[in-house]
């Protein structure tokens, strides 16, 4: 996937400004940066949820707007940041929607097997017949991600998937992201607030500041004292733990 000079304005204010970068296939790419830097807007534009004003999103060699939406939904799945579902659905029903691009209204036995696997991946077996509005925020978040897993796409886009999760589930979430990439060969693009999760679990990091890409590169290239201090405007120290550059800020 290649993003070229992507720009978006809201009410005359440029919130994403000529963003260009290429997403390496089969890797985990994390987008980091302060609130309002434009990460969600970029995620929305590269997944055709938000129309861009200018620039190009090229997906598998073809302009994303030229893809048939049904075809695209088998290749690319996105979980947005705010998804407060009002509807009374069970976890299993929600996860089943992930199979919609493939099977429409009929769930085949293969679909059921894939749904079972997605539920197991997110450790939701015990909750699968509970209504999602009777679950905690974190369980609901995991159910949403299980749906995206059931959608079984090459590209998975997750906007702040660790939001609402406790340390156990957030860490598990990141391990699952890693497994989606390592075991299933998926390309995972995610927005993260925890820099250390990004540093520990991703292959590449794209750091945003004020609607532009401040830095894009491997974890080692981006996670440096100078870069982070510049992007977040706070003081950073970088420690090398388990071969990864982890940061503390104060």
């Amino acid at each position, binding site marked *: 996937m290649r993003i070229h000079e992507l720009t978006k304005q809201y009410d005359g204010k440029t919130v994403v400004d000529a963003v260009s970068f290429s997403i390496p296939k089969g890797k985990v790419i994390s987008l980091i940066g302060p609130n309002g830097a434009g990460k969600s807007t970029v995620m929305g534009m590269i997944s055709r949820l938000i129309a861009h004003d200018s620039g190009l999103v090229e997906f598998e060699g073809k302009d994303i707007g030229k893809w048939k939406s049904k*075809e695209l939904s*088998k290749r690319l799945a996105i979980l947005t940041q705010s998804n407060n579902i009002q*509807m009374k*659905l069970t976890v299993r029903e929600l996860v089943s929607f992930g199979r*919609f691009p493939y099977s429409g*209204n009929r769930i085949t036995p293969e679909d059921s097997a894939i749904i079972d696997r997605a539920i197991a991946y997110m450790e939701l077996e015990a909750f699968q017949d509970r209504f999602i509005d*009777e679950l905690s925020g974190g369980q609901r978040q995991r159910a949403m991600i299980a749906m995206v897993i059931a959608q079984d796409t090459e590209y998975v886009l997750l906007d702040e998937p660790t939001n609402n*999760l406790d340390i156990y589930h957030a860490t598990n979430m990141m391990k699952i992201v890693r497994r989606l990439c390592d075991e299933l060969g998926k390309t995972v693009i995610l927005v993260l607030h925890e820099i250390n999760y990004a540093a520990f679990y991703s292959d590449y990091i794209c750091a945003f500041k004020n609607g532009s890409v401040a830095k894009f590169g491997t974890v080692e290239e981006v996670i440096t004292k100078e870069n982070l201090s510049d992007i977040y405007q706070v003081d950073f120290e970088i420690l090398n733990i388990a071969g990864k550059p982890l940061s503390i800020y104060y």
Partner: protein
Amino acid sequence: MLTNSIHQEAIFIKGIRSTLILAGALMALSVLSLFVGVIDLTPAALFTGNLEQLSIFLTSRLPRLLAILCTGIGMSVAGLIMQQLCSNKFVSPTTGATISSAQLGILLALLFMPQSTLWSRAIFAFATAVGGTWIFVWFIQRIQFKDAVMVPLVGIMFGNVIGGITSYLAYQYDMTQALASWLVGHFSLVLKGRYEIVWLTVPLVVLAFLFANHFNIVGLGKDFSKNLGVPYNVVLFLGLTLAAMITASIVVVVGAISYIGLIVPNVVAMFKGDNIRGTLVDTALFGALFVLVCDMIGRVVIFPYELPIELIVGILGSLIFIGLLFYRLKHGRKAVRLGSPSSSSCSCPVSALEGGEEA
């Protein structure tokens, strides 16, 4: 995964149990209703070939029953579709201006084509009902009310404005008498040869069932739909059109019947959730049962006269609706579980996983 599939099967059986009970009750009451009326019909006389009785049966009793079933099924399914698409539990043909728009269409047909047949009136009603519903939904999508209760209030106001225009026109052109029959729904004029349009609800409801999952997904929002490759606007407009056509084909034949589209889907959802693939059949059956019971009450309370169905539905419906509101105020949208406490699956030791999750 073997245990899981057995478990899923148990859930499935639990799910269809209510459907079977509803279908059984509906069947029994339907048969009973065929033999309630001013003129005594008996099954024995019918089977021995009493021609007079047979003719009453075929021209009046049976059409009436079919119209009742179609009305109950149609209005409740139309309400269900509208609620799902707008993801608002208070939207319905009554609170979404669909019924009043259909009435305006009928009046326009009466004005412009005094000789109009049932069919041409129906076409006018289709057009206005679809148009009115579209405008209403376009409006509520534009405004994006924070409070869900605002939506039906706006719908009721919008419906009253259309109703006002209808009354004004009817008054101006001396049509109040003619229009009265469509303002208050009743089944007493349902006779063979002049009610068959109501059968249209059957194919339309079948169509709704085929698109049930599309409606579910659209109800989950624009981003959710796009992610799954569902064309949000197309499905939204098709679904609304379907609901409006169902409503109009009923209003043209029996007149306005309120509340059913509002309360029936809500009652069913309390037990079975909001996945309309799982609730559509139950909603349709329960709607038919509800209208049938109301009709039978209307026919026996002041026997040998009868009360219009709209009156009975209005009284029962508003009581149930108030009950629903109180239940929701007290319990939120917590599901009512039938039979054994919760679906047994949740009794596993999950507390360890849940610890500190609410952070």
